[in-house]
C-alpha cells in the first residue's frame, strides 16, 4: 500500500527587522512577526515578545 504524506502548511514563517537610524544607531528588533506550525512554539514566541515589551 502506498502512503502519500503532504504538508499543507509550511513549518515556520518569520519576519525579522533591524532598524538603522540615520545617526548610525542600530536597533535589532528580532522577529517582529512569527508563525510556527507548533502552537507551543507560537506561544513561546508570543510570551517572549510580550515580556520584551514588543506586543
Amino acid at each position, binding site marked *: 500500500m502506498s502512503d502519500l504524506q503532504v504538508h499543507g502548511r509550511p513549518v515556520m514563517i518569520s519576519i*525579522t527587522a533591524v*532598524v*538603522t537610524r540615520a545617526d548610525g544607531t542600530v536597533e535589532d528588533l528580532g522577529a517582529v512577526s512569527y508563525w510556527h506550525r507548533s502552537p507551543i512554539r507560537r506561544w513561546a514566541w508570543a510570551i517572549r515578545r510580550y515580556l520584551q515589551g514588543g506586543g
Partner: protein
Amino acid sequence: MERTLVLGGLGPLDRLAGLLGQLAATVFSTSGKAICSGRLIGATPSQAEPKFAALGSGAGTAVVGDTTLFTEFTVGTWTGYARTSNAGTQVTTILTNDTYQNVAVFTAPGAAAVTNAGLFDALTVGNLLIKGDFATINLALNDTLTLTFKLQFA
C-alpha cells in the same frame, strides 16, 4: 466592587488568552500556495519569483485570504510603490535548503509608521506570498529598515 474583584481574579489561562489575542499574525497566503506550485512547473517557470518586498501602514490582522497589505506604501512617503526587488536565497534551518529567505532593505524618505510587510511576485500589484503584521516600527528620514523574510518547509 464585585466586578473589580472578578477582573482582578483572572487566572493564568485567562491572562494567556488575553496575551494571545494581541498576537501579531504571520500568514502563508492562499495566493502564496499557488505561487509555490507554479514555480515547480517547467524549466523556466512562468510564475515569477515572489522576491518583491513591500511595506504597509494600516492596522489589521493578517489572514490567509489576504491579497494585499494593510494600506501599502504606494504614494506619499515613498514615491510610487515602496517595494524592493531582492534575490531570494535558500538557507538551512533544520534540513539543507529547507527555507526560502528574502532580505529587503528600505530607506525611509521621510517619517513613516510601518505596521505590516509582505512578499509579492511583482514590483507593483502582483500576488502575495507571505504577510505579517506587527507592532508599529517608526522610521524617520534616512532611517534604514532591513526585513528578513523566512519561509521554512521542513
